[in-house]
């Protein structure tokens, strides 16, 4: 017993001196892997985009330069402004719908399902669509919504409408529908998480104070669910703002989004213009996230 203790002390006393590594160096070494990963895969690409956005270009190549032309072109064009407006419209509608639907799904899961097993089962059911890719889930709407699709043919056969509804597919409606479908889970998950953390005795305490069901919802549950709603909003807003495939597929090319505009510029080899656009979009999205974080304090959730 004593021998072990002494040898332990001996080692403990000796090791730092023999290695002679100062504490600051050890700390930096521990942080190195993360710095490398973030540096190569996050900071470097963003810096590249930022640098390229000031370059010159023509149909044949890119020329290192320092021009603000890409920015003045982008911000000076009414097409850009219209596209931004359109993207913001999709974002706002999708955000509002996913927030409402996501909250109620999470609320139902958290407060109306009694057993934890059932809660987990139903929550997993919510994630099942995510086992297939985004594109496939989107495309699967086409046979449902198309001119001769499931919805139209059913409605015609039931005699409710005389001819197919045209705006079901390849329209803003279809874009929003697909976006809500794709993104609601990003709202459900964080809200479900915050709702599950609400102490159930708070709800009893509210009832003890004479609160009705809707008063409890408005005065206790909603304020306490705000951090989850903010996190979900950040997910949905950033995803929808950067979306190009949903808009392209579901609008049949009739609607545009900022990311779609960038994709088109890239296919025309106008990389610096796309880069400038990307920087502007990044700033806009960061401002939106900052606005959300200003309204709601999410630190408690992290």
């Amino acid at each position, binding site marked *: 017993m004593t021998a072990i203790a002494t040898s332990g002390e001996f080692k403990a006393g000796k090791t730092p001196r023999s290695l002679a590594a100062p504490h600051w160096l050890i700390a930096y070494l521990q942080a190195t892997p993360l710095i490398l990963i973030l540096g190569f895969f996050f900071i470097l690409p963003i810096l590249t985009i930022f640098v390229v956005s000031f370059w010159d270009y023509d149909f044949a190549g890119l020329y290192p330069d320092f021009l603000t032309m890409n920015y003045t072109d982008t911000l000076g064009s009414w097409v850009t402004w219209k596209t931004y407006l359109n993207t913001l419209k999709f974002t706002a509608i999708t955000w509002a719908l996913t927030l409402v639907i996501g909250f109620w799904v999470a609320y139902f899961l958290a407060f109306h399902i009694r057993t934890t097993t059932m809660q987990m089962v139903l929550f997993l059911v919510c994630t099942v669509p995510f086992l297939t890719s985004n594109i496939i889930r989107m495309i699967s709407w086409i046979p449902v919504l198309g001119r001769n699709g499931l919805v139209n043919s059913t409605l015609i056969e039931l005699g409710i409408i005389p001819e197919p509804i045209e705006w079901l597919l390849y329209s803003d409606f279809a874009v929003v529908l697909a976006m809500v479908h794709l993104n609601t889970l990003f709202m459900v998950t964080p809200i479900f998480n915050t709702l599950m953390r609400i102490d159930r005795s708070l709800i009893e305490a509210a009832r*003890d104070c*004479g*609160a009705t069901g809707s008063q409890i919802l408005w005065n206790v549950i909603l304020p306490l669910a705000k951090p989850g709603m903010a996190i979900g909003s950040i997910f949905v807003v950033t995803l929808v703002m950067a979306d190009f495939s949903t808009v392209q597929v579901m609008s049949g090319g009739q609607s545009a989004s900022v990311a779609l505009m960038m994709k088109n510029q890239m296919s025309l080899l106008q990389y610096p213009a796309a880069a400038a656009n990307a920087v502007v979009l990044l700033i806009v999205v960061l401002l939106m996230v900052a606005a959300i974080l200003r309204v709601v304090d999410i630190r408690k959730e992290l």
Partner: protein
Amino acid sequence: MSKAAEIDIASVSKIYGTTTAVHAISLKIPAGSYCCFLGPSGCGKTSTLRMIAGHESISSGDIRLGNTVVTDFPPAKRGTAMMFQSYALFPHLDLLDNVAFSLKMKGVDKDERRAKALEMLKLMQMEAYATRRPAQLSGGQQQRVALARALITDPEALLLDEPLSALDPFLKIRMRAELKKLQKTLGITFVHVTHSQEEAMALADLIVIMNNGRIEQAAKPRTVFERPATAFVARFMGDHNVLSGRVTKIEDDIVTLEVPEGQSFTVRDIGQEVGKPIDIGIRTDRVRLEPALEKSLGFQGVVSNVEYRGASVKITVIGAGSDDFTVILSDADYFRKPFSVGDAASLSWALEDVIPLGRLSA
């Protein structure tokens, strides 16, 4: 300030699926008294409190508060207010809004409800913290706010679910005194659930001891201490040693019983029958460590543990079918003639320190 209400519990049961948490209990809690529900965890004391509060439905039976049967009333309509174990303060509201919450739910306008809440906080000496959030408060402060929130509805009865269990030992004793003082000032009925014998003894006018969903005894603290009704109460309160055996002889009102190990003991009791099982209780602080004058008022055992407690010494003895027969000696008595573990000891007591313990008719 307020009117107190008598709480009348009439053969109330609580059944969860196939398990019965509370077995048809009946109890009258006098208006303006401090009542403590005491028992081990899972004994049904919290279920009973929650049924009084209206947070748990009553499977059968009725609860009356004052002159109203409140069995089917929602919590806020009963004239009761509940203080929750973890206080359940709303973390997103400051203290003023926490206390004013029930007034807000009633639709009282902002200035009026805030003024009233501030008054309530003043009563609890918490007005200096009115704009803080609950998370910025200590446990004792949170409890005062929870009390203020419960009392702002001007209840006839305040229901407290283990209110002191979240506090450290020193604060526990201080808040205990505050609760008692508050109850005296307000004059309303307090029903307090606890698992601490000491807390119940210190606070209660009426102690209700529960076990397995039944009331074992409901009496004044002094009665519970001196005349525990059942073997469970005697063991749970810890001030009596319990010996169990069968009645072998009845002479006038002196009953002789024999424990399975063979020793015989006597107790003064009536209404016993030869051959029936019987439990007796012997006050731990009345047992002497000297040979018995009468064989049936003592036994020989072996000391298994000695615990020094300052003013007293607790000695545990094995013998007479009990492996934790406890003797509490004053320190002076102990050090005059000390014992150590493994020593043989003769124990004796007087006939008047032995009490018969009843059994619940199941």
